[in-house]
């Protein structure tokens, strides 16, 4: 994947958990709606703890010749979602 085009993505939630679900759902939608594959992300969280995010993502459009599609993500779930705010990590389970 090459960072050829740029898109703006923003999301908000009631708390960091719902923010992560909303934000990843936006990224999934970008792929599902227009076939935009995300390669690079610059994201700025807002709030303490974060409840919103503004991001600029770069990537390119899906090209079946170069992008082997193996598994389709249907949705981002809340199931057992874990967030480590200190380390800036989250474990998210997606429905495939």
């Amino acid at each position, binding site marked *: 994947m090459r960072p050829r085009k740029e898109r703006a993505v923003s999301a908000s*939630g*009631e*708390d960091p*958990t*719902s923010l992560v*679900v*909303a934000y990843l*759902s936006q990224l999934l*939608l970008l792929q*599902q*709606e227009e*076939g935009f594959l995300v390669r690079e992300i610059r994201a700025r969280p807002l709030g303490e703890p974060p409840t919103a995010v503004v991001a600029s993502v770069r990537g390119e459009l*899906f090209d079946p010749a170069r992008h082997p*599609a*193996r*598994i*389709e993500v*249907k*949705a*981002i*779930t*809340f*199931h057992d*979602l874990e967030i480590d705010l200190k380390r800036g990590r989250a474990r998210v*389970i997606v*429905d*495939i």
Partner: protein
Amino acid sequence: MLLRWARAVPHVPNLVRRDEFTYEIPRDEAAGMRVPGVLFSDEALLAGVAGDPSLTQLANVATLPGIERNALAMPDIHFGYGFPVGGVAAFGLDEGIVSPGGIGYDINCGVRLLRTPFTVDEIRPKLGGLIDRLYREVPSGVGSRGGYPLARSDVDEVLAGGARWAVARGLGRAEDLPMQEEEGRIPSATPSVVSDAARQRGMKQLGTLGSGNHFLEVQRVDAVFDRPFADVLGLEPGRVVVMLHTGSRGLGHQVATDFIQEMDRRLASEGVTLVDRQLSCAPVGSEPGQRYLGAMAAAANFAWANRQVITHGVRRAFAAALDRNADDLDIAVVYDIAHNIAKIEEHRVDGGTKRVLVHRKGATRAFPAGREEVPERYRAYGQPVLIPGDMGSASYVLAGLPTSMDRSFGSSCHGAGRRLSRHAAIRAFKYDEVTRGLAGRGIVVRSASREGVTEEAPGAYKDVEEVVRVAEGAGLTRRVARLVPLGVVKG
């Protein structure tokens, strides 16, 4: 109305055996359970769910407000998000809730069975070419699109019209409609509440199978258990039929995503904490509850339109492969069933009758003979229930039994049920071995991806024979006919 319930079920719940095929999670097993959890199973199937979270999920469902009788699980129960797959729960319309996680992401995922005029001997010599044609006519695989692309202005009509929309466009026959659950259309759908994002995802995907466990299979009738009903269904041994399994594609996934998040936000703002946020819900009669039901019905209609458009593709593929005119080919809809949906139905509750909202997630409606919801031609026998097996074993046609009404709100199982997750299956099986095993038995497979085959390897599923046997023993459905695969198109 404020929803409140206690945190519940922190551990694998205790199961008490009630009779040969019925197990119960007693109400006092966990704080917050309003009713017992009831599971139809046997020792062999239970061994398959030991250690998986699906029983905890069943107990979680029992904590939801307004739940009637029991939280139920069918013999093919396995892990889901929020509700277990194989979960059934009914809620009072005044005091109960609607939970998008009780319907699932793939709204109106379902199965349709088509009867061809051909015998297996007529099809066998042309099978390879036929499967190739089907693979070309019905787009499948990850992100599949291109079946019947919609203009933005068409989407509302599809969401309102369901299978009827497709037939009006010449993508089917009028006689296809009465042979479908709800005749392929829920009239109360509200297209206007379906988000732009959901519409965008659906526009390019009508008439496509998708990936995952969705498939299109050419099968032969292998055995008949209920001769009179099988005769009415036109299923005699050796007859070639086509089964297709798909749903509302990205449109339904997005409707579910939209409402799970919206309901989660509302609960958070009311200070309600759920045992599992994936169970987010709203009172049935509330504005968001009603809006979800309108959107769900619209997505369900999209799924029926999708299966109808694919039916048209199947007819074209048969005509092309057999060098016949599609209009002269008698390929008829036997039945079309939803297995991810919620419906308002009248049931016996507490000695009286009551209208309740029945959630069925990975579960089918299985009404008995005599119910007016059953197509007239089948009414003396019961509603057909279509059970897709894995691609190496068998699929089943069942019929609803009278006892299903009191035991399971007129519901039954929906498939074999996974034994291994998709990920575990990809690790456990090799593509070459799976396809060689199938080819050794004369089964032709075309797939858009290798993963599409390995994740659906026969060994990834529970034994469908065991599932339908338990469903019969528990008084939910009886066996009518067994179907075995000849060729498979996989996503």
